[in-house]
């Protein structure tokens, strides 16, 4: 069954949210509609869009005009209503709000999601990011707690430092507690390239500090 069909089935079975986006069905105007979950009481006053690709522009910048390169950041703009004609448009729009999130969720449901821990991810880097793998465990733990904090990213971390070293408890690991059963989770199956880039910076700082001593 296609991803869009499974998504449609889930929505018909009362899944009604993903991240900060509310999923509405059988509205007067279209089979599916999306809006910011904080705008559910303001539907009649929202700016209407009918093209699923409008989701890209809506999700691109925050209210201050800053680039949202991490789409799971909790700063999605409000004030819009996206009316969608069918399950393919729904899937397309959600893939623009939360890239690959629906597919990752279904893969986890099916037991075929491949999770990679941080150390193997860092070990496979080349070029300027090769140095990132030298980051200390302490440095990596602190970095994850900071960069993956719910204030920065609402994705649920599925990985650890490596097979033997779990991630330390921090708000970065507590995101599942805030999700309802009717919500498609935002899953983090491996560290993003932003985190890899930050690991490199910390690794370099650690190395500079060690040289200075």
């Amino acid at each position, binding site marked *: 069954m296609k991803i869009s069909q499974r998504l449609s089935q889930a929505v018909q079975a009362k899944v009604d949210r993903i991240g900060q986006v509310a999923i509405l069905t059988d509205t007067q105007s279209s089979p599916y509609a999306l809006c910011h979950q904080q705008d559910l009481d303001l539907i009649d006053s929202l700016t209407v869009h009918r093209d699923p690709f409008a989701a890209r522009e809506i999700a*691109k910048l925050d209210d201050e005009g800053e680039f949202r*390169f*991490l*789409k799971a950041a909790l700063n999605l703009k409000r004030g819009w209503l996206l009316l969608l004609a069918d399950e393919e448009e729904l899937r397309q729009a959600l893939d623009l709000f939360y890239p*690959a999130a629906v597919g990752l969720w279904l893969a986890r449901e099916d037991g075929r999601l491949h999770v990679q821990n941080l150390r193997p991810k860092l070990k496979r880097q*080349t070029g300027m990011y090769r140095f990132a793998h030298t980051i200390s465990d302490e440095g990596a733990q602190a970095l994850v707690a900071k960069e993956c904090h719910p204030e920065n990213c609402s994705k649920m971390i599925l990985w650890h430092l490596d097979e033997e070293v779990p991630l330390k408890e921090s708000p970065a690991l507590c995101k599942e507690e805030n999700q309802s059963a009717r919500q498609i989770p935002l899953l983090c199956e*491996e560290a*993003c390239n932003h985190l890899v880039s930050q690991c490199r910076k910390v690794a370099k700082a650690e190395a500079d500090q060690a040289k200075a001593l």
Partner: protein
Amino acid sequence: MTDLSHTALLIVGHGSTENPDSSGPYFDHAAAVREKGLFAEVHLAFWKEEPSLREAFYMIDAEEIYVVPDFISEGYFTQEVIPRELELDGPTTVVHGKTVHYCPPVGIHPTMTTILSRRVEQEAPDIRREDTTLFVVGHGTALNDNTTRAVKDQAALLAERFPEFAAVHPTFMEQEMFIEDWDKHCETPNAVVVPFFIADGLHSYQDIPVLLGFEEDEGLPASQKDIFRQNPYQIRGKTLYYTSAIGIEPALGEVIIDQVHTFRENHL
């Protein structure tokens, strides 16, 4: 005509964590290909944005996928990063049960020279070419010679196709011949600078204008400036035209499709 209607196309772009305009052209290219209705699905994946290359697989229903790097050359990304991230080990690889065909990047397509020349025609249509030096600018990298070679090859092809230009130079942001020294290699009153990049992102909208000398600092991203509407610039005693990157050319959608056909001719 090859039936691709059961397959997916995955276009791979670089993207940026800092510049919101960087991924724009890739979305345009994907839209152009989608309009043709050739593939069951058309998706995008990025090195620096979402979805990542590994995440992208989870978006795809099709069992057979053509991957086209939307990059200007063979090089570090197309030969090392993308195959590693997509877990490819050759032209065709079975990855998590899906058959993945790895096509050549757009930048090595024969029409690249025409696409570059159209940037010149668009931004400086009335310029006297005999009084003009043309600069093609690329990134330059110590990691892989192919990227450098691509810029040099295009400069040579442009010089051959347009002998009326006084000179055509390949230049780079991070290696000799440095673009910031453009005026030292410009014996004509006019100069045209063409960035050999897909996207008008950090490099072409922010870094290169600073290196050329008509912007003082990195400043705002492209979409918040009118850099290309202010041509020509009077700078360092010359009249300089600065074109946008090649990503805005509508022909790139066709180039992507062509690279799939090229793959099929060579490997299937």
